[in-house]
């Protein structure tokens, strides 16, 4: 493990010495120090006990600094081509091009160079250290790129914003570290699709954070599709700060990557707010998909719903850690957490762990998890009606993945979610591609 920390320390020294004494360089130094005191987690760390990082931390990733300023539009995945939306394209984390409408898009790398940046606090984020892991501190320590999307108040962005996080060949064996920030002002609404993908099967360490700031009475629907290269290590921290009466729905679909650590952390920080944390982790071969949900109820009268479903094939492994923290002033909290796993092979496995920390006395908090294989009785019933076994299986698997759709209202997001899942079925040879 020392290998990774030594290597990354060298990279950091080289990196932060380039920047003059500024608000961001001191923030970087500060957070790098926090990373060092934590180090890379071991299996004895409670929040990482199901995820072995030995292989990941044996690699020497260098900081990505080769410029990739152009993006060939022909690389846009087929599945996104028909979407009528505002495309924001980042290559190796750097903003390369974008289209906007009634909202503003800023290049984070430029903002970080401004000494008097008015968005300093939003960029740094004010999240309590004790709830952050090494990937998040590293993300702050190496922060030099990304995009900042600003939506003013009472604005409804009609077409979805489509953020493409693309990793080109320059990302090979590198740490690609970026942060996307979306700030939605009072009574505004937006739909955001994020699609992460790479060229070929390159090995890279993607360390991305996404900050959502939802001001009072705002509404966001977010669909994130992570289809990285099969040799990549992907760490993602999604943090959401929600104001009064805000509504946030996020649906993450994990598909391509050797190792995933997917941290989602909504903070219900205003009365009457509501958070839906949905996810589908589709794993095969020997992928490992580790999902860490942390729903924080900081104020009263807020609702949250977590619905994470795993579909695991071959020798793959899934982890679901569902943590709910209800602060003592968060009375009348209504929090529900559900994790369901469908094992498609005898060798796939999943670990699921709920963690409820409740400090208020008038709350409703439920959690449940199931893991199993396709229900044989149900399969028999479908077959007894004439449906061939393969079709019966896929009907059951498909319906398993569609439960999360009940929480999404936008047609484009719904359609894309279904198409992505069907594409995975074909790629996994669960159905023929015709």
């Amino acid at each position: 493990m020392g290998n990774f920390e030594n290597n990354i320390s060298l990279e950091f020294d080289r990196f932060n010495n380039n920047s003059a004494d500024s608000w961001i360089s001191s923030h970087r130094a500060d957070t790098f120090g926090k990373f060092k005191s934590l180090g890379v987690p071991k299996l004895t760390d409670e929040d990482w006990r199901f995820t072995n990082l030995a292989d990941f931390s044996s690699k020497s990733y260098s900081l990505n600094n080769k410029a990739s300023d152009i993006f060939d539009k022909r690389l846009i995945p087929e599945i996104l081509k028909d979407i009528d939306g505002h495309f924001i394209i980042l290559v190796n984390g750097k903003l390369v091009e974008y289209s906007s409408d009634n909202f503003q898009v800023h290049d984070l790398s430029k903002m970080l160079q401004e000494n008097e940046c008015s968005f300093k606090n939003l960029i740094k984020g004010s999240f309590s250290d004790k709830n952050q892991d090494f990937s998040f501190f590293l993300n702050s320590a190496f922060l030099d790129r990304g995009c900042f999307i600003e939506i003013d108040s009472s604005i409804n962005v009609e077409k979805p914003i489509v953020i493409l996080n693309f990793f080109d060949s320059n990302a090979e064996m590198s740490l690609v570290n970026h942060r996307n920030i979306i700030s939605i002002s009072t009574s505004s609404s937006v739909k955001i699709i994020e699609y992460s993908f790479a060229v070929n099967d390159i090995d890279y360490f993607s360390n991305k954070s996404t900050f959502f700031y939802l001001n009072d009475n705002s509404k966001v629907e977010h669909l994130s599709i992570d289809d990285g290269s099969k040799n990549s290590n992907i760490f993602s921290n999604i943090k959401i700060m929600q104001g009064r009466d805000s509504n946030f729905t996020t649906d993450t679909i994990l598909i391509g990557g050797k190792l995933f650590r997917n941290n989602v952390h909504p903070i219900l920080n205003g009365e009457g707010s509501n958070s839906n944390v949905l996810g589908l982790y589709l794993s095969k071969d020997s992928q490992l998909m580790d999902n860490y949900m942390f729903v924080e109820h900081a104020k009263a009268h807020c609702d949250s719903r977590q619905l994470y479903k795993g579909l695991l094939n071959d020798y793959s492994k899934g982890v679901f850690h569902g943590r709910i923290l209800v602060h003592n002033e968060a009375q009348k909290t209504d929090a529900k957490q559900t994790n369901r796993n469908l094992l498609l092979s005898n060798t796939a496995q999943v670990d699921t762990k709920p963690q409820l920390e409740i400090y208020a006395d008038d709350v409703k908090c439920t959690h449940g998890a199931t893991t199993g294989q396709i229900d044989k009785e149900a399969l028999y019933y479908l077959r007894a009606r004439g449906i061939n076994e393969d079709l019966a299986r896929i009907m059951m698997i498909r319906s398993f993945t569609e439960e999360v759709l009940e929480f999404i209202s936008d047609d484009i997001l719904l359609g894309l979610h279904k198409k992505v899942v069907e594409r995975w079925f074909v790629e996994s040879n669960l159905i023929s591609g015709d």
Partner: protein
Amino acid sequence: MLEIVNLHAKIEDKEILKGLTLKIDKGEVHSIMGPNGSGKSTLASILAGKEDYEITEGDIIFNGESILEMSPEERAQEGVFLAFQYPIEIPGVSNSYFLREALNSIRKSKGKAPLKPVEFIKIAKEKIKDLKMNESLLNRSLNEGFSGGEKKRNEILQMSILDPMMAILDETDSGLDIDALQIVADGVNALKNDEKSFLVITHYQRLLNYIVPDYVHVLVAGRIVKSGDKSLALELESKGYSWLEG
């Protein structure tokens, strides 16, 4: 149409059917009655192709062909339909999606083109109306939230849409009140013709006032011990089964 010849079957080393022989011709309605544990549901499951049972002796011949090696879906495609005693719920799979796929799978096996969703919905709605059920069931998950009686009626709805050659009703009347029973019986009777056959497995004589059988058989300890016409059912109702047991 259906010939069961000296059928012996067991599940996990327990022999349940011990030499069952039965012949059902086209257009006939047969009823099987018997005490609990006699093997009635086992017979129904075996006919539908449930893989938990082992056939140790005998044969089942449907339309001249042995179906012992056929999978459940092949049997359904050949025209066998089992209305389950305890239909299960399948959350997430809607009634309409399920039925359309079933109907199209059967059509495909006969070389017919699949029905488009619109065409299917039209047919489904007609049948739903005939069975006095609510159209909204089409969008609901299969049997989810249905009462026992609704589930049984849903089995008959499926039967009327899939239009089998041979329908086996496994205690379809159990737990139904008179009104539901009438509707179920009407649904079954509407399908009766010279080409189709029915095997009505029942514990109670009452159903047979509504679905009148041509033949009644009594199944005791895995074998048919007596056969007769519909009057046999009335005899059983007044005398019970003990005179036939042992």
